[in-house]
């Protein structure tokens, strides 16, 4: 029988004691397991929440962040210095317009509140450019629908879904068959059409800085209107060419004609920009970039970033992480102390055996290895028990920690128009599952715990003098 075999066999020499040790270590390891899972899960959630916010800030006209419009629209010329700021890697300027579809719905369906609006997201607001905005721009304003030969791409079933609007009929009357126009310097960016995904399926994406009369339309719109790449249609009195056909994951996206910013500005007859999405080189640069943009544009602009709100929202998660980490360290220390005391007790109990082994010529090393194996066996037994506890308890304990930490289920930034940020909702919904990385980390910790406890045992073993032990026999 090898050293390791003897170590493992010795671990089961006294079954009652072994079960007791495994149970105690299992409880402590279980706590460590749960806290490790909680720490990782909460950390991942916080990281995901922060990274979901992205390293971007949105620049709009004054009052934009509060859901209103207190000043003039910004212009491309005014936004130009932003691109030159240190830490800014990109500026996506956008402007929105609306088109009246050629096939209006039956009059009975219009303005009765029986239909539904295409979803409008904060990133692509259907903002009225009222006379009180003080805009000095000339030409038609975006809220005055342009005309087009396009048919509305939505389905009848979509148009007849319920509408949450009180009191009914909705005031002002809602036009269900509006086609949106989004002009931006980054036409392929899904965010400009209120979508999270935009895929060009035919043709080539248009350039955001080109003034050519090229547009991108959705597959739905192309099918409804019998258009394909190279086809033409009329809008704002101009013949536009379909350069690309795309798919998106929202109805609003599919209801949108995408143009370059210069083209839409030309069609509407303005040099205004409604919003600009500024990308910072990193999340850590975001606060500085935000501050510099505010400094450059002054009070005429509203600069919106979710990051500070996100950081505030996830700070409670940070507290949970700290608690989990402290508890994890505490549990590991407790495991080392427990195993240390167990091994000290065992070594003292087997002092005579150690003396005999030394007397018959066994070097210190193999004896230490034998006891270290025994300690590792105890630890692994505790780990098995702890893993079972961890698998059962990780999720409920994590949820409990999070729910008692002040994190709200709908915590998040107010966002645009007072709405909660979609990326910061459901912060309490944390997936605390025991995965292989956790198990591997626990195994590594078990080895460290066993090594720590064995070190004490080894020191005691090295001090056993066979002559003294045998003299006392």
């Amino acid at each position: 029988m090898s050293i390791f075999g003897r170590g493992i066999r010795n671990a089961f020499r006294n079954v009652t004691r072994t079960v007791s040790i495994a149970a105690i270590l299992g409880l402590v390891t279980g706590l460590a397991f749960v806290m490790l899972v909680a720490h990782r899960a909460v950390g991942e959630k916080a990281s995901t929440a922060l990274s979901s916010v992205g390293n971007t800030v949105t620049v709009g006209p004054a009052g934009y962040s509060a859901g209103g419009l207190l000043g003039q629209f910004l212009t491309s010329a005014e936004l130009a210095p932003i691109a030159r700021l240190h830490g800014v890697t990109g500026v996506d300027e956008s402007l929105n317009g609306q088109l009246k579809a050629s096939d209006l719905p039956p009059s009975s369906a219009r303005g009765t509140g029986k239909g539904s609006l295409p979803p409008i997201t904060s990133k692509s607001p259907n903002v009225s450019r009222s006379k009180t905005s003080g805009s000095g721009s000339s030409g038609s304003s975006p809220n005055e629908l342009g005309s087009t030969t396009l048919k509305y791409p939505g389905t009848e079933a979509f148009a007849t879904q319920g509408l949450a609007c009180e009191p009914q009929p909705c005031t002002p009357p809602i036009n269900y068959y509006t086609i949106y126009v989004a002009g931006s310097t980054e036409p392929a960016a899904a965010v400009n059409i209120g979508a999270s995904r935009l895929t060009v399926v035919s043709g080539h994406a248009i350039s955001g800085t080109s003034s050519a009369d090229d547009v991108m339309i959705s597959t739905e719109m192309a099918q409804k209107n019998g258009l394909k790449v190279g086809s033409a249609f009329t809008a704002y009195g101009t013949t536009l060419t379909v350069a690309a056909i795309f798919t998106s994951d929202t109805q609003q996206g599919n209801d949108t004609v995408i143009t370059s910013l210069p083209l839409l500005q030309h069609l509407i007859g303005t040099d205004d920009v409604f919003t600009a999405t500024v990308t910072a080189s990193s999340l850590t640069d975001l606060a500085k970039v935000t501050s510099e943009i505010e400094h450059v544009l002054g009070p005429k602009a509203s600069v919106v970033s979710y990051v500070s709100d996100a950081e505030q929202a996830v700070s409670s998660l940070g507290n949970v992480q700290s608690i989990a980490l402290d508890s994890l360290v505490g549990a590991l220390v407790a495991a080392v102390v427990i195993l240390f005391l167990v091994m000290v007790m065992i070594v003292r109990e087997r002092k005579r055996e150690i003396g005999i082994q030394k007397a018959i010529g066994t070097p210190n090393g193999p004896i230490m290895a034998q006891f270290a194996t025994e300690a590792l066996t105890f630890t692994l037994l505790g780990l098995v028990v702890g893993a079972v506890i961890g698998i059962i308890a990780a999720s409920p304990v994590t949820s409990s920690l999070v729910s008692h930490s002040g994190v709200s289920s709908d915590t998040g930034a107010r966002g645009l128009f007072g709405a909660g940020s979609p990326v910061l909702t459901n912060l309490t919904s944390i997936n605390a599952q025991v995965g292989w990385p956790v198990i591997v980390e626990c195994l590594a910790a078990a080895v460290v715990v066993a090594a720590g406890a064995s070190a004490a045992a080894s020191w005691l073993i090295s001090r056993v003098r066979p002559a003294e032990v045998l003299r006392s026999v």
Partner: protein
Amino acid sequence: MLEVREVTKSFGTGDRTVTAVNNVTMAVPDGEFAAIVGRSGSGKSTLMNLLGALERPTSGMIFVDGQDITRLGQGELVQYRRRSIGFVFQSYNLIPNLSSIENVMLPMEFAGVGKGERRRRARGLLDQVELTGDKQHRKPGKLSGGEQQRVAIARALANSPRLILADEPVGNLDTRTSATIIELLRSLAHTQGTTVIAVTHDLSLTDRADRVFRLRDGRLQAADGAGPAPSAAGADARERGR
């Protein structure tokens, strides 16, 4: 040949020094069955520990086959104990969690003997001390005192040592079993050339010893050549065993 020259061992106990072994000089030829007798506290066990390299003398030299073991380093002492010494204790001191055969195999593990060879030799040694059958696979707790002492003797012989040191080897045994164990040790000395030194109070053992050393207050009083001189055959057998 075991030769002890002017060996002294002193211990500091508080503010005074106790000399357990005082200027002892003795010699035991190969293949001899010798006994060390003396009252409790006379220094017998300390002398045994010195011979077994479990302790270093305060002064003096101990030669085993011409090698002064008092000059060996710590690692060399462990190796010396493993290869040259076999211990037999009054209370057997077997590892309780190991079977008889595993106890015998244990000293061979660190002497570079392969696992199969260890098992084969251990079985042979247990057969030699007449512990056969399933008793070889029993744990010490399931064996009688005499059987345990046989296992201890087999373990002591595991690495074919030059010297077997037995501390009260029959102290816990009944008269009949004692006689068997004494004959076994005597036989080992005379047939295999292994030098056997036993510390004892037992007259039946001293009567069968080739040579008896009497210790009193750490000093060697007398060395009686009570038994026959070591046989040449025993020395030859030992040589063959190496």
